[in-house]
């Protein structure tokens, strides 16, 4: 009985907008907030799957109060409802603790399919989705280009290295991390923005979820600009003269051609 209820929820998208801040050297004010680009593709894939197979798309986002902007954008694009894990200091959570937040928030949801972006634009851990799958004991696949729904299972197209691809089949429920750039992202319509205002946003806090940032497995200490050993040289003159000078340098100084 419970199964039929859950299948109506296929699929579920996660916007795990990893707004991890408060690092020495980077001021919060310097950062702009928008849907983490890889997560935007996960949302788009979820919306397309819903259009094909029906179901409900739930957007999940962990971040400070101002992440509500991101959530409204997801709702305006077509997500049915959202869960906002409101946490000001996500930067204190290591990737495991951050994924525990998401896992705890999803406990009452039991989605059929969880989609996440490949990585965050900022910290680029690229780990949240896979960690979440293990915490929820779900099968997973990463760098997914296509999702095909079968009977009680899915077949996905995975990107491998050097232009290779692979199909992988797995039972539902499952978790996928979606490759960026696989589709054209939709814009929110005026109607969508209007509708979003009446959609449900459930707010939970880390303490309500029983997850703390204490005892991290890894700690970030110093943040700094990488040392640059490279030089920039500009060549004057006509394109022909400049090209000749460049070739000269590449041949006899850099000795690469």
């Amino acid at each position, binding site marked *: 009985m419970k199964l039929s209820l859950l299948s109506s929820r296929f699929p579920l998208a996660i916007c795990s907008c990893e707004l991890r801040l408060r690092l020495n050297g980077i001021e919060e004010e310097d950062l702009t907030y928008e849907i983490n680009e890889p997560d935007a593709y996960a949302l788009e894939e979820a919306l397309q799957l819903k259009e094909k197979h029906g179901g409900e798309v739930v957007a999940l986002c962990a971040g400070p109060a101002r992440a509500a902007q991101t959530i409204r954008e997801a709702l305006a694009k077509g997500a049915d409802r959202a869960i906002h894990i409101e946490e000001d200091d996500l930067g204190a959570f290591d990737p495991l603790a951050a994924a525990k937040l998401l896992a705890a928030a999803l406990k009452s949801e039991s989605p059929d399919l969880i989609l996440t972006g*490949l990585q965050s634009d900022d910290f680029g851990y*690229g*780990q949240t989705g896979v960690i979440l799958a293990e915490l929820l004991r779900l*099968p997973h696949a990463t*760098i997914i280009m296509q999702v095909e729904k079968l009977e009680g299972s899915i077949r996905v197209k995975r*990107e491998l290295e050097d232009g290779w691809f692979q*199909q992988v089949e797995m039972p539902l429920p499952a978790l996928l991390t979606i490759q960026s750039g696989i589709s054209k992202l939709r814009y929110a319509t005026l109607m969508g923005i209007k509708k979003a205002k009446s959609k449900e946003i459930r707010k939970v806090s880390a303490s309500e979820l029983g997850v703390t940032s204490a005892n991290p497995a890894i700690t970030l200490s110093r943040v700094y600009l990488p040392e640059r050993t490279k030089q920039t040289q500009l060549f004057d003159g006509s394109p022909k003269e400049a090209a000749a000078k460049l070739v000269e340098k590449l041949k006899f100084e850099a000795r*690469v051609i």
Partner: protein
Amino acid sequence: MSILAVLEHNGQAWGRTAWETVAAAQQLATELNTTAQAAVIRTGGQAFAAELAKKQLEKVYLVDHELLNDYTPDGYTLALKQLIAQAKPNVVLFAHTYQVRDFLPKLATSLGTVAVTDVVSHRIEDGHIVLVRQLFQGKVNVDVRFAGGMPHLASLQAGAYRADKVADGEAPVEAVKPQLAESDIRTKPLAPFRESQRAVDLGAAEIIVSVGRGIKEADNIALVQKLADALGAELAASRPICDAGWLPMERQVGSSGQTVAPKMYMAIGILRRDPASRGHERFAHHRRD
């Protein structure tokens, strides 16, 4: 008490950055006054293990099981968990490949820890390892330390360590057969395939001419192709170019594509803040030492 390098091969050839991982393990072992070990996972890795047996390693583990013939995150995680329980390494190193990205966070979670991924360098401070990784698409560096218990897991960015620094020696090979059942493996991988006709190996290219959206029109690619031909270079591109279908995906470099380590990287119409420029930065890093 050792540094364990887990190496990738596809049955025919080593993973491109496998030897860099061995070099890193040897370097860390020397600096921390301990020993380096290496492991290969997959069916039929005897020849690969035999090659490792000629390197300066304390031991080579040949992890072999018929359920490890095709890579699956479930199979590799379970096999490595058992190997780690047996070998008890302090540190386990991986190359930051697509495959490692697929299972390493799962392995770390199953061990109750967090892996430090895509490491570009390290240093030792008071006997502790400090790993350096990049944030905000390579714009800033951050120092990362392990705060939890052993083992400490890390994956290394291509080009971060020098494969030609691997030291020769002699090592015994130990076969390990993990406990695995078919029901443990939930995903079913089908045979890999290639979409484009010609195989391009940007990783092995000495000279790369890379093109970005500054090129404006698909027709202008021919111009850059001419330059690449004149230089004997491989043509590469940033993500938007491949997304637009102007060049096939296998020619994509940058933070979401291949990492390359050519002798020369020429960027045409690629913004410095574009992720594809990371190909260049990695290459600069690689060449510095």
